[in-house]
């Protein structure tokens, strides 16, 4: 976290970026990153209804559940993601933000699975860890809204012989 914070602070030394957390899973990472970032910066949040989620509510087009509070025109925007998989959510976010004429958009993600990418044209500038194709919980990551509160990231393993999940 310190390394990421130092790198971002160096790149934005002459700026006061706005860090935009993509809810929900990124909130813990955003909190830690913000505290590791020794430059002035603002915070905001956005939330989209993911495909297949209960919040989708039968809509066939993506739905914004929480939009930004801040005006990002002429601002340096740093989107904070928990993990990038297919890139579809991030692709939508970046395109939407670009319409609001920010000075720049970049992305920082805690975890990355580049081998699962469906869209490539993403401004991913900072990556915590490239991780294998496993399921994680804790540190904001959930499975069906459970285990977000665990203080650190844990690998979730399914026991095929039992409906109970072990991690």
């Amino acid at each position, binding site marked *: 976290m310190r390394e990421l914070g130092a790198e971002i602070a160096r790149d934005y030394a002459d700026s006061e970026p706005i860090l935009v957390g993509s809810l929900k899973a990124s909130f813990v990472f955003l909190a830690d990153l913000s505290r590791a970032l020794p430059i002035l910066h603002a915070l905001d949040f956005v939330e989209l209804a993911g495909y297949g989620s209960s919040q989708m509510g039968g809509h066939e*087009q993506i739905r914004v559940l929480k939009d930004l509070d801040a005006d990002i025109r002429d601002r340096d925007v740093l989107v904070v993601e928990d993990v990038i998989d297919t890139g579809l959510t991030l692709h939508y976010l970046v395109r939407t933000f670009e319409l609001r004429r920010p000075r720049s958009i970049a992305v920082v993600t805690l975890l990355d699975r580049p081998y*699962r990418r469906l869209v*490539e044209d993403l401004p991913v500038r900072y990556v915590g860890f490239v991780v294998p194709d496993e399921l994680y919980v804790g540190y904001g990551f959930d499975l069906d809204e459970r285990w977000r509160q665990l203080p650190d990231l844990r690998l979730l393993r399914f026991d095929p012989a039992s409906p109970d999940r072990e991690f």
Partner: protein
Amino acid sequence: MGLDSPAFQAYRGTEPPRFASRAELECAKVLDYYGVPWMYEPRTFVLETDEAGRVTEAFAPDFYLPEQDLYIELTVMKQSLVTRKNRKLRKLRERYPEVKIKLFYKRDLERLAQHFHLDLVS
């Protein structure tokens, strides 16, 4: 066989797509939901011809994402049965090195299905 399609918003083809599998339909719905322009089997790549110039082997990837300039092929076959498709893909890459294509294996689709709560089998 074809599966009925909903009214797609990001579809960039001219004819209504006729999906060959549930997995293809679900993939189209996900792309559409996120507003990623897509086409369904827009191009058939010739892989082999005989001496008379007749096409003896061809390959039409399932999806094309024009903004990404990327083809996507899905396969729901078991890993042990994808040899033929892998061979076709290898030929395509040899003959059309400028073409970007990704093959999503059954395991990849299962991960996507898990992520997006897709129903790939009904």
